[in-house]
């Protein structure tokens, strides 16, 4: 299959190297002069929010909340939400808070599938009326909201 002259030439062979990147270890104990602490053998990896919050890195995105329509679910204007496009089907989103594409905008609402022709997007603030979406409307469920981040200071 590979002809002899097709072999990789020596100048094209490069030494593989590990990328020079270090995670800061989570320090278990104070450094002591004299005897090393036995706990140093138990250095752990630093805790990462990514590990905690991102289930599907390829399908996870951020969105900022632009209204107070979901205040009843403790999601306020200016909060950051993480959403995962892995969860899109009616089975896994029914009754849940989702990011949807409605007309030309993105919106965050609770979704309820009525039947195969209609669904309702509900806000959790009495100021906002539910939105009825019918078959044929320009609409798409983008994914489920997985985490909400709120600034406290």
């Amino acid at each position, binding site marked *: 299959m590979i002809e002899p002259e097709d072999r990789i030439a020596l100048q094209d062979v490069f*030494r593989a190297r590990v990328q*020079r990147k270090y995670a800061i270890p989570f320090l278990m104990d104070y450094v002591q002069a004299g005897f090393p602490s036995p706990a140093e053998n138990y250095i752990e990896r630093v805790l990462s929010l990514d590990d905690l919050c991102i289930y599907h890195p*390829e*399908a996870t995105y951020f969105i*900022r909340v632009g209204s107070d329509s979901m205040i009843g679910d403790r999601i306020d204007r200016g909060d950051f939400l993480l959403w995962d*496009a892995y969860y899109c089907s009616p089975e896994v989103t029914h009754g849940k808070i989702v990011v949807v594409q409605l007309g*030309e*905008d993105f919106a965050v609402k609770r979704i309820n599938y009525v039947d195969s022709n209609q669904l309702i997007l509900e806000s959790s603030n009495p100021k906002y009326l539910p939105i009825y979406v019918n078959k044929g409307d320009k609409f798409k469920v983008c994914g489920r909201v997985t985490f909400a981040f709120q600034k406290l200071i």
Partner: protein
Amino acid sequence: MLYGLVDANAFYVSCERSFQPRLEDKPVIVLSNRDGCIVARSDEVKALGIKMSKPLFEYKELIEANNVQVFSSNYALYADMSRRLMSTLTHFVDDVEVYSVDEAFILADGYEGIYPSVRGLGESIRQTVAQWLRIPVSVGFGPTKTLAKVANKLAKKQPELAGVCVLDTQEAIDQALDQFPVGDLWGVGGRYTGMLKGNGVETAAQLRDLPDDWIRQFMTVNGLRLVHELRGTPCKMLELSQPAKKSICAEPGFGTLVADLETLTDALTSHLSRCSEKLRKQDSLCGAVTVYLKTNKFRKTPGNGLPAKHYYKSITVELPHPTNSTPDLLKYAVSGLKAIFAFGYNYQKIGVMLTDLVPFDYRQKGVFVDGPNEKMLQLFTVVDRLNRRYGQDKLRLASQQYNPDWPMKQKYLSPRYTTRWEDILEAK
């Protein structure tokens, strides 16, 4: 063996649409670096007859009349979406070769137990990418990479295939190649198309059936490899780890014409900083710098409308020792520029190319010269890290500062939805 090629349709346009639903079904154009020329078009734009690689102003009326949406290239967004795309593919198969920002070859053998049919594999890749990234991709399968590429083209062209084309039987392959224009084949290009057509070869099938000797004589061993691939014998393997590039270059055009040495030097510094950063990223050193300078070949002299005098010159400066530090490289590049600069022309482009690349570990002291300055090499790895963290060109050479609005002219840049906090999507 069965190879697959996954290719995003009008990738840059699709990335913009992914975060801006209002762009769906509308004509959309993405411009190159510095808003120079058109690098991506949606189907609606193709239908208007707007061609690739043309400067925007050539289509000014057409764009206004049809309300074409124009974007500067948002490389931060495209790079992130590309990373997501490639990573998504690894959920389906083990072997993925990232071929370019928007295409990847996959090895589709041995998944019979998981995916009932190859077509089914293609369809689930398409469906998943559409759901996770909101961008359309086409998938082509064939017994060789070249045939997978052919299949992919067909998947894009023929709507009835619904984005997936499988060439896994001899009849299917023969039928596809019978109508496939020879110029559209991977690796044929303009140079051979004319020659082949002159010899009466119009389709891929005709090329496949030519004798080996003829191919070798007129199209070198690479042509022979292509023909073998068309016959179903794999000659191009999957390259799973990217080989380091053999040369690195940058030559974005100016938005306007430039006549003075000072601006040129400034542009050269910008390009060189970018190139040497790439060089450091792939852990290489370079042994030679090439600088070239050119005027617009098609420019007419204002007033009389005669073709303006064209100037093109390049120079290669060999370095005493391989290096990747920006000031070192700049010293040689600038002296090169001074040597080729001629007064009295309006320059359109200045380009810089780094060649004779060697791995970082390969550093040799010459007999009469010292090796590269180790401190400088280390300094610039730090500079790169800082710039990655705080934004491009935050830390730069002073000579790069001469013109603060030089580096990018991006009038139509969309938000960087996935890489900047201030740019993320907002829910209404």
